[in-house]
């Protein structure tokens, strides 16, 4: 199998409060390549810069310095409008706090990225139902987020991330707010997306066991990549 890099980060720096006395350098020259179909875990202490890195990968934020190509598109040169389009079509976000729209039901939440992609109403509903069925939420489609448990919410959020069939899924501590049994189920879902649909997945996690299940573990400390090794597999 040919290895094609989808995420290419070179010499990425990120600083906050630039030009003020409390200027903060969060990323110190990160080099990272992720290949198509890879399942990567990023681990590291709280405050080490994992989320900052993830936001840059996800085109939500721009690095202060460095170069970044996603699918060979120069993300530094891309304009905001292009970045929204890339976020919409190529990337699926899964957050620790789910971030579902509280006023609308599960199906409407899953439809949302398709709305911005200009998918017609009937196709949106069809696809949303399909995705909710895939994550095992077919009988909760018309429930509001507040009527769902944490694990159920996260499954809806994963379905939403898959809405426009993105190549890459970025998950920032998706099991962080769940108990280990529910976390397990969510993790299984990621494995399925990886194996069955060949998605490239970058996962931030605090759980050593879950990290070991991925193909590659990247350790970040104080904004530097300090270690990189293969996962030991499922225990």
């Amino acid at each position, binding site marked *: 199998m040919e290895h094609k890099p989808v995420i290419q980060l070179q010499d990425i720096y990120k600083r906050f409060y630039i030009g003020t006395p409390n200027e903060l350098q969060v990323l110190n020259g990160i080099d990272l390549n992720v290949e198509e179909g890879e399942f990567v875990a990023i681990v590291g202490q709280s405050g080490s810069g994992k989320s900052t890195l993830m*936001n840059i990968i*996800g085109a*939500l*934020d721009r690095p202060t310095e460095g170069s970044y190509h996603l699918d060979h598109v120069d993300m530094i040169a891309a304009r*905001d*409008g292009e970045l*929204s*389009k890339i*976020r*919409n*079509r190529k990337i699926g*976000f899964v*957050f620790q706090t789910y*971030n*579902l*729209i*509280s*006023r*609308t039901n599960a199906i409407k939440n899953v439809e*949302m*990225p398709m*709305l*911005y*992609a*200009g998918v*017609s*109403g009937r196709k949106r509903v069809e696809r949303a139902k399909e995705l909710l069925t895939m994550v095992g939420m077919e009988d909760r489609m018309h429930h509001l987020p507040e009527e769902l448990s944490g694990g159920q919410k996260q499954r809806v959020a994963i379905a*939403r991330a898959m809405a*426009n069939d993105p190549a890459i899924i970025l998950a920032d501590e998706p099991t962080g707010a769940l108990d280990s049994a529910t976390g397990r189920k969510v993790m299984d879902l990621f494995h399925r997306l990886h194996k069955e649909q060949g998605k490239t997945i970058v996962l931030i996690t605090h759980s050593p066991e879950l990290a070991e299940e991925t193909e590659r573990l990247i350790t970040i400390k104080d904004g530097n990549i300090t270690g990189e090794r293969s996962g030991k597999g499922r225990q």
Partner: protein
Amino acid sequence: MIIYENIRLALFSLKANKMRALLTMLGIIIGISSVIAIMTVGNSMTASVSDSMESMGANNITVGLQQKADEEESTEEGLQFGGPGRMKSAEDEDGFTYEMLENYCETYADSIQAISASENMGSGQILEGSLYANVSATGTSLGYFLANSVDILSGRFFQEREFDDGAMVALISDLAVDNMFEGDDEAAVGSQIQVNIGDKYYNFTVVGVYEYDQSSMGFSSSSAQDTTTAMYIPLKTAKELNHTENYLQFTVVTATGVDPEEFTETTENFFAAYYRNNRDFEPSAFSMSSMVEEMTSMLSTITLAISVIAGIALLVGGIGVMNIMLVSITERTREIGTRKALGAPNSSIRLQFIVESIVICLIGGIIGIILGVALGIGFAGFLGTSAKPSIDSIILSLTFSMAIGVFFGYYPANKAAKMDPIEALRYE
């Protein structure tokens, strides 16, 4: 498509905060409803005024005499001028002469359709044995029947020869026919009647019966038997019987296409030339359309005043909408961040909140319109006119509330659109 979704979303968020939405709409509701109410009342009043003016002939100019303001006395005694002692009534010799009228008609032949003059002979009775009918005998010119709508039920109008000769002919009302001829119009036409006016008796030949229009006579408490109706006779006849030469008052029916406003002034100036040397009187002319105009301008002043108040209410309402939109955007910062993370372009976020603001204003506007129409109808009913809610003002109100929505929603919506996605997602 995305607009439809946005409207749905906006309705969702309004439903979640019904009380807040209603309070926000209050300014808009008050503003729009007062505009609609005043428009409705104004509309129905103008309609009823011009309706009644129309029936009286909007293109008629009435020319009469008024006492000249006595400058010497009025300066000496201030506001006392025109006091009871000095009120003079115009005598026949002060009146407009036949020559003046003829001159006037020749000078402005193109502008004048007819001149309507009348001569009141006073009240009297048609008598025949024990039968009687109360009438007021009025001498009329040919133009009188053009200026006033008189419907002939039976017989005919006066002929030109009868006008010229001062013939002893009369038009009587159907009411008088009821009293004198048991309602038999055929029997009435051609018959001789004896009329007692003052201490004199006159004999007239009835040539026609006209329809008595009760509404034109106003409220009358007398029974049908005692009601006084007009008995029309040729003008010259009345002049001869009254021993008068001149006209104290007459009505000009203007030709079509003549501006009555302008012609009123022309007319007044024309006759003023004859009265330069008259010590006590000067001509005065006014048209029905100028009265309508006055009425309309008064209404539009009221409308303007209420519109200003409504405008302030709408401005305050708009600011309220802007305020609530800013609050709502702050509350939904994480939602905005999420939407952006999932690929919403700035333009979609802006649209979402502008639509929400438009929906608030539009609902407020619709409530305001309903309230305003109800108020207007109620008030018009109180004034005794029938209300006519104007479609124009309803469409205008809807457009205007949408414009308020756009105007006051733009700033908050733009603020939301420009939010940094990371900051928005990190917002607690």
